[in-house]
């Protein structure tokens, strides 16, 4: 409850504030956004299954974003930045797809 409210409020604040993202953060933005989306869909599925806990949601969001950015950073250090970004986005995309499939089953069959 608090997590969703906090997230919604944060998004609202982000819409009205106009920041400039520093240049060194630019390569990490796509994976961070996709990791956040994965956590969001996982939370939606958990909520539909009746197992949602906001602490788990926030921790999974945070952890996903951190791990995804770390992997991409490691990849850029090793020279495989683009490939690593692709791999992270592919895996997160697969998880998003499977979570949304469960959501679909839960909504339209339950």
């Amino acid at each position: 409850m608090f997590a969703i409210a906090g997230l919604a409020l944060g998004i609202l604040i982000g819409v009205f504030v106009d920041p400039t993202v520093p240049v060194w953060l630019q390569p990490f933005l796509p994976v961070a956004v996709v990791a956040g989306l994965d956590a969001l869909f996982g939370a939606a599925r958990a909520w539909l299954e009746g197992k949602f806990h906001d602490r788990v949601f926030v921790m999974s969001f945070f952890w996903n974003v951190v791990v995804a950015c770390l992997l991409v950073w490691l990849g850029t250090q090793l020279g495989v930045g683009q490939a690593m970004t692709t791999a992270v986005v592919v895996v997160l995309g697969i998880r998003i797809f499977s979570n949304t499939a469960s959501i679909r089953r839960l909504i339209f069959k339950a």
Partner: protein
Amino acid sequence: MTRGTHGRQREPVSTPVEQSQDPAASMSLLNQLLMNPLDAGYEAWVDPPESRQVRWGYRLLVLLLALALGVGLTFAVRALRVPESASLRSELLERARERQMVVTELEAEVADLSTQVNAHVEAQGTGSSATDTPLALSTATSTVTGPGLFVTLKDSQDADAASRPGGGAVRDQDLRMVVNALWAAGAEAISVNDNRIAPGTFIRTAGSVILVNVTATEAPYEIRAIGDANALSTALVRGSTGDYLSSAESVIGISVSASAQSSVTMVGTDLQVLRYARIIDSSGGQ
């Protein structure tokens, strides 16, 4: 992930293969794809025994963290969105207009400050261009009125203007020839489209507009001069200037017309560049 959740499940909805002692536990990615289990965190959640304060403390922490994540997510999404090329042009136009407004404001501020400076200098009473009339005239810093001449240069209005050299437009050298001829004939003050010509003023083309100092002007160009109207208008038709203007009229198609005026007024300009200043320590002054 598998070992941590092994002994703490409540009621497993599905029994993923990874929960047992599977030697291929490290292949959990493929298992995840096949079995599609819920995220392990939600699956294994047990309400921990906490006091109320700790629980509210955690709730506050969750709220703040969620706020930060929401803000970060929106920043990232906004930074990633690429503007469409159609709006890029209007964006550049907007920025150009904003900068132009800033320039106009600064010019107004400069004019305001210079009048204040002149007022202070006059109060001092020391000789300066503000009080010394001949000096003010030659440096074009004061408002002047007197009989004079209006000279109007227009772009070519013919139907075949586009085929003429330069598109039939008045060029900066045409304006310069007129202004120089007027000075030589004894004009005391000249302005082009209400821009006063001071000793350091230049008339140059930049791109497709003619700049007088740094102000853009456009056709038709009205040059006002204070002086003897007869002498001034004669200077425009005789001599090398007369030849130049008549050839410009025939080749490029511009039109030059002059009319005498009994009273011409033009304001002064203050484009002094400060190169050297010394604070005078006087008893009553500032």
